């Protein structure tokens, strides 16, 4: 953390000054901590540009045979078809994974639930609603999330806060931010410290807030010991949450590294009342998603977080077209397959919008220059749905994308064919790339110790 302060002034000195009530102004040459000559590292610290991880979720999978051309074996070149045409320009930033299995070991397929839980946690639920293991984004955040304001960020354009696919357990499931204005306020509101401000003045009130939190945590340690084991575990989660806020406050007391990429975005407009009443109409979903994508991308570029989760549509795809009686989800089960096209036209239309949204999301990340490349080059985005073919609720061969160059740690442009191997191989690969010290991952038949080395550098 000390790299964030000029060497001649220790953090302790700053804080002592703060506590003495003296206003401290720490002037730094503007942008003196920019990138090195190669554009690959921070000049001030010599540390490499941070590696970031994101997830992106859409409901209802792809339309088999009309999204990606099938392959018999792993190889370069992804065969983008009509449904995924929007992703073709980003081919050199993508890997596509198909043919991986979701063995249930005799458990039920809880429709639109088992798929994402198994894929993201490595454990198939034993009962409806159960999330037995942490999702992979949190395991990655435990590894790379320190030193930023937010260990993880969760946003959703689907308008349902609880439908977020990041959880430590059944009872510890983060809720997504569903309002662009609220997301903006959280990221760039009054507590945002502009790293490029010419002067820096630590706020004494923040120091005090941090002291208060620490003191209350200490006091409640004794209280924790009187509780049963389960409640103690719940309270530990609460303490963990406080510690994250303490860390955030600590960062607010430190001069951030100047960062020319980081520009506080404009505050989104309050949505009109008619839009608020129609949050899940697809044009509104797309608009919300675009705003949130920009906010998240800038938050990542501003080093406010290194792990970020975006939900485009939820696992029951409660999105709809104006005037249509069926939602995307209902269409997948009721719409007749058009014999001339070989698919359900309206369900396919929604699937296309999902692919376009994913492409737009990646393009937003790629629009931010960072070093000699783009923000997307320093990210790994794990994008997946909960099903392969929604019409039949199939969970084998759930489509998974890995996007971004992960700062050169991943090869791209490959279509990886799983051959029935557990889908956890993809998640394990992502975690290995992000540096999570795991030997194996998953439970029962989903357990694997084999990352997909074909895509790893």
């Amino acid at each position, binding site marked *: 953390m000390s790299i964030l302060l000029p060497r001649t002034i220790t953090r302790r000195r700053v804080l002592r000054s703060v506590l003495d009530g003296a206003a401290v102004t720490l002037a730094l040459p503007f942008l003196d901590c920019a990138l090195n000559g190669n554009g690959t590292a921070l000049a001030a610290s010599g540390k490499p540009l941070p590696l970031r991880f994101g997830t992106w979720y859409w409901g209802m999978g792809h339309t088999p045979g009309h999204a990606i051309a099938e392959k018999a074996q792993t190889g370069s070149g992804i065969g983008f078809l009509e449904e995924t045409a929007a992703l073709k320009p980003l081919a050199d930033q993508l890997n596509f994974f198909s043919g991986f299995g979701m063995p249930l070991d005799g458990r039920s397929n809880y429709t639109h639930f088992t798929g994402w839980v198994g894929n993201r946690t490595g454990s198939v639920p034993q009962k409806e609603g159960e999330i037995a293991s942490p999702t992979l984004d949190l395991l990655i955040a435990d590894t790379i999330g320190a030193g930023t304001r937010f260990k993880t960020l969760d946003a959703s354009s689907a308008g349902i806060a609880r439908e977020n696919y990041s959880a430590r357990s059944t*009872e510890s499931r983060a809720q997504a931010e569903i309002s662009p204005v609220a997301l903006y306020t959280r990221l760039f509101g009054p507590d945002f410290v502009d790293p490029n401000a010419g002067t820096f003045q630590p706020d004494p009130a923040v120091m005090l807030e941090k002291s208060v939190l620490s003191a209350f945590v200490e006091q409640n340690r004794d209280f924790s010991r*009187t509780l049963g084991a389960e409640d103690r575990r719940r309270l530990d989660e609460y303490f963990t949450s406080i510690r994250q806020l303490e860390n955030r406050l600590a960062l607010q007391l430190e001069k951030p590294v100047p960062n020319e990429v980081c520009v506080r975005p404009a505050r989104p407009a309050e949505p009109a009342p008619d839009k608020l*009443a129609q949050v899940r*109409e697809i044009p509104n979903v797309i608009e919300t998603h675009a705003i949130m994508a920009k906010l998240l991308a800038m938050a990542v570029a501003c080093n406010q977080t290194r792990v970020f989760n975006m939900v485009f549509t939820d696992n029951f795809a409660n999105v709809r077209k104006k*005037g249509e009686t069926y939602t995307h989800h209902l269409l997948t089960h009721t719409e007749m397959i058009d014999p001339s096209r070989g698919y359900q036209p309206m369900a396919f239309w929604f699937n296309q919008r999902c692919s376009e949204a994913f492409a737009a999301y990646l393009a937003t990340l790629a629009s931010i220059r960072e070093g000699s490349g783009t923000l997307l080059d320093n990210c790994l985005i794990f994008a997946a749905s909960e099903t392969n073919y929604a019409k039949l609720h199939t969970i084998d061969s759930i489509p998974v994308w890995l996007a971004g160059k992960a700062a050169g740690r991943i090869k791209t442009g490959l279509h990886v064919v799983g051959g029935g191997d557990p889908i956890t191989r993809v998640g394990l690969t992502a975690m290995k790339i992000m540096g999570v010290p795991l030997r194996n991952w998953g439970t029962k038949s989903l357990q694997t110790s084999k990352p997909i080395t074909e895509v790893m550098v």
Partner: protein
Amino acid sequence: MSGWKGGSHVGVALSAALALAACVPNEPPSAGAPATLRRLSNDQYRNIIADVFGPQITVAGQADALQRSYGLLAVGASKAEITPSGYEKYYAMARSVARQAVSLDNRASVVPCTPRSAAEPDENCAQQFFVKVGRLLYRRPLAPAELALVLRMAGEGARLRQDFYGGLEVGLVGMLQSPQFLFVVDTLEPDPAHAGKPRLTAYARAARLSLLLWNTSPNEQLLTAAEHGALDGAAGRKDIVDRMLSSPRVEAGVRAFFEDFLRFDQFETLEKDSVIYPAFSVRVVEDAREQVLRTVLKHVLDKRADYRDLFTTRDTFITGSLARIYRVPTAKPEGSAWVPYEFPDDDPRAGLLTEVGFAALASHPGRSSPTLRGRAIRENLLCQKVPDPPGNVDFSRFESADAQKKTARERLALHSTNAACAGCHKITDPIGLALENLDGIGQFRSTENGVVIDASGTLDGVPFNDAAGLGRAMRDNPATTSCVVQRLASYSLGRNTTGSDKPFVDYLGQSFARDDYDFLELLRRVALSETLFAVAPPVGASSGVQTARMEP
């Protein structure tokens, strides 16, 4: 802060006395369950803040919603954790509430003393403030160490800000983000009547009562009564419970239960297509929810009517926005004022199931859904689990049913011909189809696609011809009353009732019948029960019994 006087429900004590005089079963003994932390609901949080600091305080934002468990958010509260992002929300709410509480506008009513100087610490005045407020927020007096800490924080805050009230704000933020406030803590003490076993402290008993009956923390009067042992014996507790039930505040408690029982949190994400249903609006969502609750409250609180008659009553309330949906000419078209309304005898609507709230909630955004409605009736109102659809259904045979079939009944008939689907659809669809005269937002229709709707069916063998008939069948179905009893038991205990609770649930069910299905009397029996306060030692605690903090 409201006391417990005044009230529209003053008949409770009298009817209770009469009921006690009749032959009623005795409450069976209960071993209880380990005490748990229960996270406050958003409504409880708001109620407490309004009680402690005044209704003028705005609680900006809201915490993460609780997750439903065994049909109830109240059970989920006993499992709920606070995630990092969830804690952030609590922290933002704490900062906002604390800032408002000590603002120039509010400090006179909130702070019980005037500091020597507004620009510096005053420990004496700060102590008066935190002793008073801390007791209400933590639902017990502050322990000496707790008081010392918050005073130290307030002192440092006052010095740094050169503002006494700024110091109070700092201390308040600390308390409002504390687990002692955000979680309802079942504080334990050794039970003098049963050596080696714990019991709830008087304060914890007061909290259980207050949250059950008023959906808020105990007020000063209740805490003081508890402190003086009023909850230790049956007579004292009866006096307190009857006074609480006679207070208008019991409306908040009953409202909270029915919102949870009826799963009204789903209204927060309810949307309808604006082209298909132009009459539907955000206002309709709010009013539809409120209409059901007003119907329930009038029925069970004001009229003390038979709970079962909720499914047949024609007595309700209406607003202008709802009048458009109901096509009722009496209310002003755009007015939002609530007026009593009774559906005429020849109106096809009768009972909760035919109100817009139920019909719209259990439908899709652009169409009605007999399956969703049937499932809601089975699971929410009859406490019967409908299995989830199997994961391997081939939907091909249902494709384009819309184009070929005119009515929902015809479309759903296909499901009964498929073995994989028929089992569950036979449970849900016959009763859901009874409501097909109500479209996706509850507007009446007699035809669908030009075909007259057939709303007849059976509920567990009882035939009916229409929605009103379904209401009568619901009224007379034993599961209707056993369900509300079982849910109220779980709601009050904060956990799913299990086999060992069956004697208690049976006792409540028998009492409910003897009390002519008077819901308030049922609530009273729960509040007076020993089971409500029964606890077992915590599992895995390093010290099995928590020392009570009785001293201020």
